[in-house]
C-alpha cells in the first residue's frame, strides 16, 4: 500500500533564507498528520511543495503515488487545499463562492450547499464572501477545500482566528472527514488541537523536522516533571519539603506563592500522599507535560520572525 505522501529531502531557498532544509516525511493513507512549528518555521512552504504549487529546489515528492510537480491534473481532483489566507472571487456571496468552486470540480450546487451547512454557514449564504468575519471566511475557505470530496486534504492553520465553538465544531468536522478514510495534513500553532486531532505530528523549526511521532509518545519522551498544586495555607512549603525528605521522595521542588503551593517532581505519588495525610488537597491540580512543553523544549522560547 502506497503512502498518501512520501517526501524525501526537500529543500527550498528564498534568497538568504533557507525556508525548507531537507524535510523528509511519510503520511500514511487515512492518517491525520500535523505539522507544528513557530512562525517562519517553513510549514507553509513545505505544504506548498507537497501540494505541487511550489517547486522544490531539491528533493522528491510523491502524492498518492504520483509526482505533484509540474502541475499534475490527474491529482488535482483528489486533493483539497485550504490556504493560510483565504482566496475568494470578488463580489460573490458565500453560497455563490462555494458553488463556483464546486462547479470547477463538476460538483453540483446541492452538495455545495450541504458543505456550507456543515461548516455552519448556511445562514450566511447570501453574505458577500469578503464581508464575512475572519472565522467565517476561514470556514468558508475550508468548505471550499472539501466540497469536491478529496481523498487528501491540506489545511494550513485552519483554526486560526476561530472562536472556541467554531474551533471545536471544525475539529468534529475534520475528525469526521478523517474517519471517512480521508488523509488530513494540517499545520497549527495550537498544541492542544494537534494533541486531540493528530495521529502523528512533526515539530518543525528553521526548515527542519525536529521530531515526529504520536503526540502522547512525544510527551512521554520528554519525561518532564509533573506539577502538583494545592491551595496554600494548609501546609507550609518548608513543612512539606521536610516531610518529603523524610519519606525519601527524592528530587522535588516546592514553592509557595501565597495562593498556590506547588511541587514539581517526576514521582508525584509521595507528594500526593504527603498532602493527603495532612488533609491539604483543596484545589488539587496535577498537571503533566503537554505537547506544548515538547514544542517549547524543542524550539526554544525566543520570538520568531
Amino acid at each position: 500500500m502506497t503512502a498518501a505522501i512520501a517526501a524525501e529531502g526537500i529543500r527550498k531557498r528564498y534568497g538568504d533564507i533557507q525556508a525548507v532544509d531537507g524535510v523528509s516525511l511519510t503520511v500514511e493513507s487515512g492518517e491525520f498528520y500535523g505539522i507544528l512549528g513557530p512562525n517562519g518555521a517553513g510549514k507553509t512552504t513545505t505544504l506548498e511543495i507537497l501540494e505541487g504549487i511550489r517547486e522544490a529546489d531539491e528533493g522528491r515528492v510523491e502524492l498518492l503515488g504520483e509526482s505533484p510537480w509540474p502541475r499534475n491534473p490527474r491529482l488535482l481532483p483528489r486533493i483539497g487545499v485550504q490556504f493560510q489566507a483565504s482566496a475568494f472571487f470578488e463580489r460573490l456571496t458565500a453560497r455563490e463562492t462555494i458553488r463556483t468552486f464546486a462547479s470547477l470540480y463538476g460538483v453540483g450546487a446541492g452538495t455545495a450547499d450541504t458543505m456550507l451547512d456543515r461548516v455552519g454557514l448556511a445562514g450566511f449564504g447570501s453574505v458577500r464572501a469578503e464581508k464575512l468575519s475572519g472565522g467565517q471566511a476561514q470556514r468558508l475557505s475550508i468548505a471550499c477545500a472539501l466540497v469536491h470530496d478529496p481523498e487528501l486534504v491540506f489545511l494550513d492553520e485552519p483554526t486560526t482566528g476561530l472562536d472556541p465553538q467554531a474551533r471545536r465544531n471544525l475539529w468534529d468536522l475534520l475528525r469526521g472527514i478523517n474517519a471517512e478514510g480521508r488523509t488530513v495534513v494540517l499545520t497549527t500553532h495550537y498544541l492542544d488541537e494537534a494533541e486531540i486531532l493528530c495521529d502523528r505530528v512533526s515539530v518543525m523549526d528553521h526548515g527542519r523536522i525536529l521530531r515526529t511521532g504520536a503526540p502522547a509518545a512525544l510527551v512521554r519522551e520528554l519525561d518532564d516533571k509533573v506539577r502538583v498544586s494545592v491551595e496554600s495555607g494548609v501546609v507550609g512549603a518548608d513543612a512539606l519539603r521536610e516531610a518529603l525528605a523524610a519519606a525519601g521522595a527524592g528530587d522535588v521542588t516546592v514553592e509557595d506563592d501565597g495562593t498556590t503551593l506547588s511541587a514539581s517532581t517526576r514521582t508525584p505519588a509521595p507528594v500526593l500522599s504527603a498532602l493527603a495525610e495532612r488533609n491539604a488537597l483543596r484545589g488539587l491540580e496535577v498537571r503533566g507535560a503537554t505537547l506544548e512543553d515538547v514544542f517549547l523544549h524543542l524550539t526554544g522560547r525566543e520570538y520568531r520572525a
Partner: protein
Amino acid sequence: MTDDRTGVRGPADGAAPDGTAPDGAAPDGTAPDGAAPDGTAPGGDTPDGAAPGGAVPRGAAGLPAARTPAATAPGAPVPGAPAPDGRTAAPTPPAPRDPHAPRASRGGVSAFGSLSKVMVVAFLRDRSALFFVVLFPLMFLVLFGTLFKSASSPHAKVAQVGPVAVVDSLKGPARDDLDKVFTVTRMPDEAEALRKVRKGDLDALIEQDGSGTVVLRFSAADQVRAGAVQGVVNALVQQANQDASGRPPAYRLRSAQVEDESIKAIQFFTPGLLGWAIATGAVFSAALTLVSWRKKRLLRRLRLAPVSAGAIVASRVGVSLLTGLVQTAIFISVATLPFFGLRLTGHWWLAVPLVVCGIIAFMSIGLVVGAVAKTEEAANGMAQSIVLPMSFLSGSFFSMDDAPSWLKGISEVLPLRHLVTSVQSVLTRGGGFGDALPTMGGLLLFAAVLTGIAWRLFSWEDA
C-alpha cells in the same frame, strides 16, 4: 448531498491513471456526527488495488488513537477512535467506468461556464466599472453628438429693422433657402438691434435706407458667419438688380456644401468613441482580472483545481466580448436615433467582427499590463496611460487629419487607429470587406504577438 455526488467522482476517477476504483470504504454514516449521509465518499486510495475493504488507515499506520480528552472543554463532544469497524464494512462495487469520459469533458465546459458567470456577476455588481465602461463613453457620445450637431451648418441670426425689399420680396422656395442659412427677426428699434449685434447675441443687422441701399452691419467676432451672411445678402442684392434689369442671367452658380454628402459629426464620433470605449473595457478587464486574481491568490487556487488555463482565458475573453458587443449595440442604437441622425451604410454589420477582433487585441494589451503590474492601482495607472494617449492618437475624440506627420506615423501602428478607421468606413461610408478584413487580420496578429509577450512575463503568484 444529492445524486450529483456520483458525478463528482467522474472527472476524478476518469483521471486516475491506474484506474483504481474508489474502494468505497466509508459507505454510510460512519462519521461520528453522521455528517456524510451518502455512500459515495471515496475511501483511502488503494492504487495497487489491494484489499478494497481492508484499508484501515489508522491500523496500517500502526498508530494508536492517542487522544487526551482532558484537554477538551466540557461539553465538547469527544468521539473516541472514530468507529474503525465502520470503515471496513460493506465495500461498494466499483463505479462503472464508461460514463466518466463524457463527464470529464463536461467539467471543462462547466469551468468555462462558471468562471464566465463569476465575471459577469462581479462586473454587474461593480457600479464604478459599469459606469466607466458602459455609461461614461455613452455620455461622451451624447454630449459630443449634441454639441456638434449644429456645428456643421453655421446658422446665423439676423435682425431686420424696417422694410428691406430684397428680403421681404422673397417668396416660397426662395424664402426657405434663405431660412436655411439664417433666421431673420424683425426688430423695431435700430439702437437696440445694434447693441445686440455688438454683444454677439445677433450676427448681423440689415436695413434699407431711402435711396435703396441695403445696409448690412455685422460683428467680426464670428468671421465665418459674418462672411456667410455677407455673401448671401450680396447675392440677394445682385439677384434683385438682375431681376430689375428684366434680362435673364447669363451665368448661374449652384453651390452645395460637401459635409452634407459626406461626414456629419455623429458619423465621426460614433466609431471614434466606440473604439475608445471598447479599448477601455478590454484593457481594464484583462489587466485587473489578472492582477486582482493573482493578488487574491485566486490564480493559485484555480491552479489547484482541475481547470485549464485555457478555460480561464476563454471565459475572460468571452465575457469581455459580450460586454464589448453590448456596448457596440448601445452605441449604434443611440447614434442612429433621429436626434443624432447616424445613417448606417451597406455593410455596417462588419463593425461587429471588427469590434470582436479589436477586443481581442486590446485584451492582449491588458494581459501585458496585468502580467507586469503587481497591484490593482499600478494596473489601473498603466492601463489608463496606454488607453488615453492611444485614443487621442487614433482619432477617437478629434480628427488626426491635421496632425503633424510624425504623429500620424505613430498613430499608424496603433490597433485602435485601424479599428476606428475601418469601423467608420463600414459603418457610415459604405466600406465593405476590403476595408474590414485587413484590419481584422492585423488586429489578430497584434493580439498574438502581445499575448506571447504577456505569457513570457506572466506569473501565477507574487514572488
